[in-house]
């Protein structure tokens, strides 16, 4: 099975265009939508080179679950939604230089190195067994320990995220104290305004009384 060149070029253009939109769009919500498109196209790329299970996992997790989490993050941090300034650091040309240098290095290495070692295609017995079935067998034999450790990692991340995002007792007290201080200041301000209004009223009345008694 060979890779269809037209599909490859169209999908790659989608991946890189989406990625460029993610890093350049000022509005963070638009960037998140571009991220979904880009990750979806990466899934299509996996499909084009014959990694079916990875394509399904990519679209389920990367194009589905992770953007939902990121959009939750955007919605819960209201300040991040309105773009401030250009959205880039002042020395962004330096960042561009660094990443362009990195790209030149990596692409140069890939282009120069011989790819004759990597012309192997899937052998017939793998295709007969099914790529996904073989992957499942590999995951539960050679990679059994990492597989189990990954589940522990996910549990730890879940617990860690909940612990971090929870309001603890001290924070709640702090917020309560802030609220009470704000209310007190509001009360003081309202009383002062009332006093000044009353004084203004008497000042307005007094001259007219003086004027009536010539």
């Amino acid at each position, binding site marked *: 099975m060979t890779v269809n060149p037209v599909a490859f070029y169209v999908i790659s253009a989608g991946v890189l265009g989406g990625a460029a939109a993610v890093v350049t769009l000022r509005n963070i919500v638009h960037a998140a939508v571009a991220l979904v498109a880009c990750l979806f196209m*990466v899934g299509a*790329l996996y499909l084009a080179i014959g990694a079916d299970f990875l394509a399904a*996992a990519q679209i389920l997790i990367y194009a589905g679950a992770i953007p939902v989490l*990121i959009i939750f993050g955007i919605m819960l941090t209201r300040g991040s939604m309105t773009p401030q300034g250009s959205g880039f650091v002042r020395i962004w040309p330096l960042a561009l230089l660094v990443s362009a240098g990195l790209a030149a290095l*990596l692409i140069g290495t890939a282009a120069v190195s011989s*790819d004759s070692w990597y012309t192997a295609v899937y052998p017939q017995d793998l295709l007969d067994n099914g790529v996904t079935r073989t992957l499942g067998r*590999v995951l539960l034999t*050679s990679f059994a320990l990492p597989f189990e450790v990954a589940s522990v990692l996910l549990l730890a991340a879940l617990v860690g*995220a909940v612990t971090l995002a929870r309001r603890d007792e001290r924070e709640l007290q702090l917020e309560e104290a802030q609220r009470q201080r704000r209310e007190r200041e509001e009360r003081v301000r309202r009383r002062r305004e009332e006093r000044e209004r009353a004084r203004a009223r008497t000042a307005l009345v007094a001259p007219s009384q003086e004027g009536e008694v010539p």
Partner: protein
Amino acid sequence: MTVGITHMLVVSAALFSIGVFGLLARRNGIAMLMSVELMFNGVNIALVSFARFGYNNRQPLSGLAFALFVITVAAAEVAVAVALLLLAYRRHSTVQADELDELRG
């Protein structure tokens, strides 16, 4: 010209570099997180194409298994990172990376 591993590695390198640019240049913490996701995907494309084009009978499809583990770790990373950004927002009312400079000397 048939599409070989070189083509895939070029796409992978370009995606990774775009992610590096976003991570260095964006100020918004959530935009930086999205750039990290792009970098993860660049690496994953390289792993999957090694598994596809460098098939090896002794250790079949290791690249695909690696890519799956990368996806798992990325999911855990996003969960923790979003929780951290939420915490930073509650404490400092901002997620702009250059305004979170409490440790500055």
